[in-house]
């Protein structure tokens, strides 16, 4: 990082000359907006792959080993057990590492951070470009694994050794597992580059007057998320390297044969992967906060408690990883410690929920597609959070650990939470990204179908879990105590098909709006934050002049003016910012 690599324009907010060639403009672009949209398209593509894998998994759970027309030609259309666990592994891996993380941090983070802090670009535009282009080999390596001998990795998305370390234990433990490791190493590098860029931009390149406690919560959330990425990802990197050495160099870090310790992998893996859960939910929380405040036309309730609870979640997130390991053989004394810290991390989540409710209270709620999805986030996150309390209680976790209870819980958080947050953000910022509005009617139909079928697919998982149905079983009905659950599983599978098909409405709406949507004004939602202070889509350098910020991001329904919104950069004559009432709750 030399002084010449980062070009700082005269106004000190970054920026670089506009590219002229097609390649520099759309492919190897250093413009954060283009990079964000690149991340958006690739992760939506991978969402389709991950979703298709989920359909195969659901098919198997409804009708084990029945022929699936068009799939699995080598085994007569039947999904063999090795194929099933490979599907489960790849569904988890793709959805987590190639969909949720890149769409939240990569797409929304890239697109929004410079716009919302009033900068012309990221601190290091070229590093930003690399962070996307190092994802591309990661994508390719992971996809290539589908075509190598033995197939993809099949040791679960957690890839616990020895299963993942010994090549002869499961078919996918050969080349497929190696590719899995290499791909995740690349993803980790990309995330790190992004995180360094985001933190630097948010800390050092804010517009004048944009103090830390005037930042929108989306930025706060992306900022804390970047810190989590920065400090957690390298630990996964080191663990992946040790696993790679075990596989290729004959070491025994995780292999008991040579004195190694398989549980060490679990510690290192969850030291990353628990914070990763917050990497996947915090940005969606930020998006939800902004969308809810905008469409309730009301200041966000308890701005500072919201910020502090994001910090608390992140901080506690580093000391709860052991709750994934209550039955792993980890010392039971540590189980008590981890159980207590896990119970405590539920608190900031509860505080956030109450503040969202407080924001809606006394509001003037407009039910746009973005708002509906943001409300769904809150409603579903409550279920995701509360079902986590069961899993935190160690004696109960003994029973529900590795059952569909956990699968239901994670999907209520990551689909019901993160993905509804992504939908909300997509409907909300689509006009800013592409200069056109998405179709509201299709948006609402998509929302209604998704919301209903989502619950039909995932709520029954708690019933399955409470009945003791373990996850990752290619044929659960081998067990007498699970045989009665097949009917319920078939119902869930039908619902899942509808859920998957409903997403075609979103894709159609997206594609149609991209070319035919109504032209978007600069500030179609009458929102307050800085990205709405520029055209839709913004010019290459984001702002004609860098705006100056006079107040916080949530001055809706202000008594000072007739309109019900007061943008951060709007100067009010005769009203110095100090006369704006201070929040009573701080």
């Amino acid at each position, binding site marked *: 990082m030399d002084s010449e690599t980062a070009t700082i324009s005269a106004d000190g907010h970054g920026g670089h000359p506009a590219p002229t060639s097609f390649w520099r403009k759309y492919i190897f672009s250093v413009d954060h907006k283009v990079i964000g949209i690149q991340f958006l398209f690739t992760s939506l593509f991978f969402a389709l792959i991950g979703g298709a894998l989920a359909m195969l998994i659901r098919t198997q759970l409804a009708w084990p080993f029945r022929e699936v027309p068009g799939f699995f030609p080598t085994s007569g259309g039947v999904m063999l*057990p090795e194929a099933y666990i490979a599907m489960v592994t790849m569904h988890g891996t793709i959805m987590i590492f190639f969909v949720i993380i890149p769409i939240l941090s990569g797409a929304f983070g890239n697109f929004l951070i410079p716009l919302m802090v009033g900068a012309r670009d990221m601190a290091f535009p070229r590093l930003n470009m690399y962070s996307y282009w190092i994802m591309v080999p990661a994508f390719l390596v992971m996809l290539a694994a589908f075509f190598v001998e033995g197939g993809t990795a*099949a040791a679960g998305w957690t890839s*616990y*050794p*020895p*299963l993942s370390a010994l090549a002869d234990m499961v*078919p996918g433990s050969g080349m497929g597992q190696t590719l899995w490791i290499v791909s995740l190493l690349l993803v980790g590098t990309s995330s790190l580059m992004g995180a360094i860029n985001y933190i630097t931009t948010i800390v050092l390149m804010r517009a004048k007057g944009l103090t830390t406690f005037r930042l929108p919560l989306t930025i706060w959330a992306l900022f804390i998320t970047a810190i989590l990425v920065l400090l957690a990802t390298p630990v996964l990197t080191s663990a992946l390297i040790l696993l790679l050495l075990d596989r290729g160099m004959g070491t025994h870090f995780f292999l*008991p044969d040579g004195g*190694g310790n398989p549980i060490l992998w679990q510690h290192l893996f969850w030291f990353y992967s628990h914070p990763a859960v917050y990497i996947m939910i915090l940005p969606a929380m930020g998006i939800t906060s902004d969308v809810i405040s905008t469409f309730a*036309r009301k*200041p*966000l*309730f*308890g*701005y500072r408690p919201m910020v502090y609870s994001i910090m608390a979640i992140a901080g506690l997130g580093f000391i709860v990883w052991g709750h994934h390991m209550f039955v*792993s*053989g980890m010392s*039971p*004394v540590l189980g*008590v410690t981890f*159980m*207590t810290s896990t*119970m*405590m991390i*539920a608190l900031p989540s*509860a*505080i956030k*929920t109450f*503040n969202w*409710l*407080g924001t*809606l*209270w*006394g*509001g*003037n*709620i407009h039910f746009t597609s973005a708002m509906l999805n943001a*409300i769904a986030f*809150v409603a579903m996150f*409550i279920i995701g959070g509360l*079902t986590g*309390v*069961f899993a935190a209680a*160690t*004696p109960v976790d003994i*029973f529900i650990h590795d059952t569909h209870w956990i699968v239901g819980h994670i999907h209520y958080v990551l689909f019901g939470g993160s993905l509804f947050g992504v939908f909300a953000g997509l409907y909300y910022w689509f006009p800013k990204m592409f200069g056109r509005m998405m179709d509201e009617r299709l948006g609402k139909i998509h929302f209604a179908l998704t919301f209903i079928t989502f619950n039909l697919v995932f709520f029954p998982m708690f019933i399955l879990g409470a*009945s003791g149905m*373990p*996850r990752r079983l290619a044929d659960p009905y*081998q*067990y*007498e*105590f699970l045989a009665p659950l097949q009917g319920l599983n078939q119902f869930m599978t039908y619902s899942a098909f509808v859920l998957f098909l409903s997403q075609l409405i979103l894709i159609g709406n997206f594609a149609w709006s991209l070319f035919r949507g109504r032209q978007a004004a600069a500030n179609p939602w009458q929102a307050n934050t800085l990205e709405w202070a520029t055209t839709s889509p913004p010019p290459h350098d984001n702002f004609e002049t860098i705006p100056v910020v006079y107040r916080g991001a949530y001055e809706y*329904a*202000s*008594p000072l003016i007739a309109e*019900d919104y007061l943008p951060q950069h709007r100067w009010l004559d005769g009203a110095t910012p100090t006369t704006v*009432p201070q*929040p009573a*709750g701080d």
Partner: protein
Amino acid sequence: MTVESISTFGNEVDSLFLIILIVTGFAFVLTEGLLIYFLIRYRHRDGSKARYIHGNRQVEILWTLVPGLMLFGLAIYQTGAWQLIRQILPAESEALVIAVEARQFEWHPTYPGADGRLGTDDDIEAPINVIQVPVNRKVIVRLSADDVLHSFFVPALRVKQDAVPGRPISLWFEATKVGQYEIACTELCGLGHYRMRAFLTVAEPADFEAWLAEIEAR
């Protein structure tokens, strides 16, 4: 939980589940109820303007302390059950100690012979995938794994424990009802993971002794 509980500590687990269900159920109804009420009550009407309120310190303190205390209370409350199930093993002298080794994709139980101790020459290797124990007697299982991770899950006992190669782990239970119950592997262990099924037979002490004598004779 829908599976019948047949262990001494099973009811504690189930009642804890119920308590958490009540607490979280209350929180669920409260928050979702308020959410729906607010959505209807404060929907957009022409000419209306939202309240200009940024927060309230008193309610923030209230809704931090109350759930905080409830969660902390839950955490403290359930340590007892955890201690009972996991932290304190019964004395080996008053329990039947057996060894179970997990391998891809079967369970290998071993019983002590006449000397009542494992690891001696007279150990009895029982048939795979059948673990028989006497009713109303404490049983300590020394769980180990030969190749990869497995997990020993007996839903009826409310027992689940990973079997870790290189790290033998002891667990205990006391079954209170005669019958046959299923054992499942719940840690992904390879392509045969889904059929790594075994049975726990809980028998009257006399039947158990007879069974043990029979397999020893074989």
